[in-house]
Each structure stands twice: as C-alpha cells, then as structure tokens.
C-alpha cells in the first residue's frame, strides 16, 4: 500500500464519521427552528418561548468549575432509554393546583431546556439526584412544615454549606461547598444578607457572589411551563378540547 493510498484511506475512514456525527449535526442544530402552539392541539396560537430567569451564564460557570456535573445529571431520558420519568419530582410534577385541578408537567428533556447555556451539563454519574427540575423541588421543600428555610435561596445555601445538615440526608456524600461562603464576626445588627441558621455564636455566614450565582442558576431549573403538543412527549398527553 502506498503512502498516498494509506493517507487517503485514513482520511475517508475518519472523515466520513466526522462529517456525519460532528459537522453536519452541529451545523444543523445551530439554529433549532421555533416551535409553535397550534389552535387545534394546544388551544392557543403563538410561538413557544422557553423561559428561564436567573444568572444562568454565571451560575453555569460556577457549576462547571466546582465539578457538580460529576455527580449530578441534567437529563430526563425518554422511557426507552431510562426510567427517571417515574421518579417523583424529577421530570415535573403530578399534583393538584390551588383550585384542585390535576396538573401534570412531567416530560422528558427538550432541546430548549438548556436555553442560556453554551454547554449542556448532561453529567457523568448519578451519585446525586438529577437536577433538571431541582428549582421546582426546592420550591416545594420550603413549603413543607418542617422546613428550616423560608426561601429557595436559603434552602440552597444551607444545603451547599453542609449537605448532611438535614437529618433526612445523613447518608449524602455530596461535598460541602463552604468555600463559596465567607464567615465573619457580627457587628451591630449584622448583615441582612447573612444566611439564617449558619455560623457560630457571634458569627455570620455570607454567601459570596459565586454562591449567589450558583443558587440562582439551580433555582432556574424548573419543569413547570406548558410546552406545545408537538414536543410534549408525555404518554398521556391530550389535545385541547
């Protein structure tokens, strides 16, 4: 085999998969077409805008730099690839709203769920729970009677500072992110930003900017919006009447 033929064969054997699974899909997915609600399926007639509020880009960078993706995933797979749709609170909620009407927001991940991020943190392992809907779960935790935090941010600060603080989570192997907080002595009335329930006598614990960004990012991860019929993969989805 001549060198020229060898090089050509190498170029083809590598170049074809390179084009087929990297270059072409990448360029096709650069601009995902907008999805529309339709009158007959959804009962409304406008474009679907994925909504997500918070410091997404800052928080994603903190999430990445501290290796959260090693133990936490952000992917709800369809039922042929995994069964996390069935885990309570992971893929959305099946509950009753304030008026007592049953609501079911459970669905698998869509391409729009990572809006605002440049890299989808699919994750390496599930040593901890999936975080696709962690914002929604925390909102419900703080409504529980025995909640020691009154706002989702405070719940997260307590959790990030010491993941094993809650008696229910004594088994957690989540590393403490105490380095995202600063501890200082209380002067006068103390800082309004101090996290209630943290710090010793005469001390207060303040979240750094990194902790604020991370908390904002985590709280932004919710699966509670209505998605158009065409990308709602729920098995029991119904057309609007």
């Amino acid at each position, binding site marked *: 085999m001549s060198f020229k033929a060898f090089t050509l064969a190498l170029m083809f054997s590598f170049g074809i998969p390179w084009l087929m699974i990297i270059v072409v*899909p990448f360029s096709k997915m650069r601009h995902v077409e907008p999805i529309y609600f339709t009158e007959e399926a959804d009962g409304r007639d406008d474009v679907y805008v994925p909504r997500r509020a918070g410091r997404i880009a800052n928080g994603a960078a903190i999430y990445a730099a501290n290796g959260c993706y090693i133990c936490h995933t952000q992917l709800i797979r369809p039922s042929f690839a995994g069964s996390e749709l069935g885990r309570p609170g992971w893929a959305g909620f099946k509950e009753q709203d304030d008026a007592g009407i049953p609501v079911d927001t459970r669905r698998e991940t869509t391409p729009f769920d990572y809006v605002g991020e440049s890299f989808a943190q699919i994750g390496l392992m599930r040593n901890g729970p999936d975080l696709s809907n962690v914002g929604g779960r925390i909102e419900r935790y703080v409504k529980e009677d025995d909640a020691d935090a009154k706002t989702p941010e405070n719940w997260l600060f307590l959790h990030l500072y010491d993941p094993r603080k809650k008696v229910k989570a004594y088994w957690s192997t989540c590393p403490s992110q105490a380095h995202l907080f600063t501890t200082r002595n209380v002067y006068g009335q103390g800082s309004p930003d101090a996290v209630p329930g943290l710090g010793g006598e005469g001390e207060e614990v303040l979240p750094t900017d990194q902790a604020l960004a991370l908390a904002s990012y985590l709280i932004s991860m919710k699966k509670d919006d209505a998605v158009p019929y065409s990308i709602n993969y729920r098995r029991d989805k119904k057309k609007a009447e």
Partner: protein
Amino acid sequence: MPTDDIAFQKDSELRAKIDRSLRHPVMFFFASGATWLALSLLLGFISSAKAHSPTFLDGCGFLSYGRVYAAHLNLLVYGWGCQAAFGLVIWLMARLSRKECSAVGIILTAGHVWNFGVLVGFLGIIAGYGTGKPWMEFPVAVWPMLLLSYLFITVWSFVQFRCSEGGKIYVAQWYLVAALFWFPWIFLTAHLFVFVFNGHPVMAAAVNAWFKYALIFLFFTPVALGTAYYLVPKVTGRPIYSYALALFGFWALAVIGPWAGMQRLAGAPLPQFMPYLGAAATILILIPALAVGVNIIMTIRGHEDAVSASPSLRFALGGIVSFLTLGVLGLVLNTPGTLKLTQFSLTGYGYEILAIYGFFSMCAFGGIYFIVPRITRREWLSRRFISWHFWLTVYGVGTVVVCSIMGGLFQGQAQEAYGSAWMDAATRSYAYNIGTTIAWSFILFGSIFFLLHLLLMWARLGRRSQHPTLLKVDDHHEASPHGPEGDLDELQSAEA
C-alpha cells in the same frame, strides 16, 4: 561472513546514534510524565476517598471533590498519557525509520511548553477556573498551547517516516503514523466545536462525549498497539504471527473507532441515531481487539519464559489482555438493556480507567522498560521494583475496574427502580467506592516505585552491565545474576 559482520556493526552503530540523539527528549517525556502520573494517582486516591467519606480533607475549596476529580483525570490524560505517548512515538519512529533525530532542541522546548500548559491547566482546575467539560477542564487558554507544542514535538517523527529509505514499513509504524494523524484532527475538532463555534448546547456536549472516546480509540489505542507490535516480535525474536490479521485489525480500528462515544447522550434531545451509533461502534471495537489480541498472543505462544523474564513483554502482554477485556466490556456495557444502567453510573469511570491505565499505560510501561536502558546505556537497578510495580498495577487496576463496573451496574439498577427511595440508589455504590480507594492506594504505591526507579535511571545511576534486568534469575549463575559489572564500553573494548 565478513560482509554480514560489517552490516551488523553499521546497524548497531546507527541504532546507538539514534538512541544517543533522542536520549534527552525521550527521558524528559517519560520522567515528567511519570511525575504527573504520581500526582494524578494521588488525586485519584483523594477523590475516591471523598466519594465515600465526604468530610475527608474537607474545608478548602481547592481540595473539593469536583475539582480534585477533574484534575485527576486531566493529569492522567495530558500529564501522563500524552507525554508517555510522545516519548514512545518519537523513539519508536526514529528506530523504525532508521533516522537520527535532528530537532532535539525544538522537541525539548515544545515539551517544556506542554508541561507548562499542563501545570497551568492543573492549577486552573484546582483554583476553580475549570471549564467543566469532561477531559477538557483545563482553562480555555491552555488548549492552543498544547496543540502547538504537540505539532512541534511530533512533526519530526512524521518527517522521519517520510524520509526513511526504501525499507519496509512495519505494522507498528501504521499505528504510530495514524495516531499522529488523528490526534490533531480530534483535538482541534473537539476544542473548536466546544469552545469556539457557537452551537447548540446539547451538540457541544455530544462533541465532548465523542472526544473522550476518540482520544482513547484513535490516539491512546494506536500508540499502545504500535508499542506492543514493536516489543513483542523484538523481545521474542519472532515475526508477527499473521500480517493479514494485523492489517485487518488496523483498518477495523480505523473504520470503527471514529463513530464511538456519543452513547453518553442516549435519550438526550439530539438526533437519536448518534448515541446509538456510538454504542454500536463501541460494541464493534471487540473486532479489532480480537484481531490484535489473537495476533499478539499467537506471536508470544511458545515463548512463555520470555514473558516471565522480560519486564517489557510482561507489561505489554498485560496491556493486550486489558485491550481484550475492554473489547468484551464494550460489548457487555453498551447493549440497549445495559446502556441505561451504565450511562450515569460508576461504570463509565471503570471503562476509562481500564482503557487509559490497564491498556495504554501497561503497554507504555512495557515500552519504557525497553527503551530507557537503551538510551541511558544503563540497566534497570532493581528486579524487585519492577515486579512490585507490575503486580501492584495489575491487582490495583483490576480492583478499580471490577469495583467500578460491578458497582456501576448495581447502582444503575437501583437508579432504574424509580419506585424506591432515592437514598437506595445514592448509597448503592458506597462499598465499591471504598474498594476503589484501596486499589488506588496500591496503584499509587506501585507507581512511586516506578517513578523513583525512572528518576534514578535519568540521573544515570543505573547498573553498568551488559545484562538486561530480567525478572527471572538463572540460579546456575555463579557470581552476579547479571553477569560481570562494569562500564559497558570498557567491557566491550576488553573483550575485543
């Protein structure tokens, strides 16, 4: 015959010249690689201990689990893996092409740049500036530096290959040339598509997942196989069992390898053919693994004493057995039934460690035990150091892999049982993590023997002897088991 004698003499002179020309860069890559390896293994031990005892070394940000784990794998890949590969490639290519190296200064400079890049990347990760893309966690400024120094390190090997006179092309050379050809393409593609081009976040994650497997199958695998295909015939003194099988194995890897990797995204919102093609390709890797495994093992057959005596052959065979295991595990872990269990469990880690440490590093150790005495003109000091290194590595890697794969499968089953409490799945891998921690400490211990031994050789404190350090001693030997001591050149001139 006198003409044969002259040819032989000329041949040894040429080989000695090649070894002499390359002694500094090759030793530099091996020694700095082994140092990063020891650090990476220490970080592996710490991160594994943190996985079951989260309060271990708690309290400072730079030792938090997420950063230590990332630093551990990146140092294993770029600090140790790539540098060991560079040392192997430049030496093997010079010997096989029968060309002296004329760009030693540039290679050494580029090697220092590479090490500086790895250092900056390492400090960046533990200081909290990691990018959070698996195996690409070094801060973004580092990758152009690595790519540029790569080009200056390896381009000379390519030139040597092209300029070699008329001789035949060896199987080892196909693998080395292919590795040199694939690495920049893969590295540049992955970093451009993830860091530079503005695309869909899921697609960036897919490119990242592909990058890991492409680096394993199209860089570490060919370098390791090239080394094995060089060492085995050389040490046993026999030609390769089947040339046709070698050719088949090579092209099977070249055709199958580039498709693998995206199965990490099975179920993610991207065209579903991509992850499942990746799974299928990883299953098919069994084909080149079988071709290479059969070929190497058949070449060694009948020379079992050589395996027990020669450190190089023993390590190389260990690497090839790991490659076969890797092929079989690829089949077992990527079927649609098992993929959902292995996708987000410890299993992936076990598979990567088997590929990088069990397979590539074992072959690289084999190559290092062969090359270093030739370029330093000194023999390895201690038989015991070598055999401890071997057994601690084999048992350690075996334990890490068994714990991660089994633990990962059980963990995956618990994850799939969505009716049970999450605590059940989260604590399922606990015992296996403890096993992994113990095994890392064994591997770390073995690699410290290796590092010390290598540094002593670098300082030219090796044995001055004509007899290579073999792992099996001939009991009938009267004085030293290694023959007469003394300077190699003096002994030779005394004989003549």
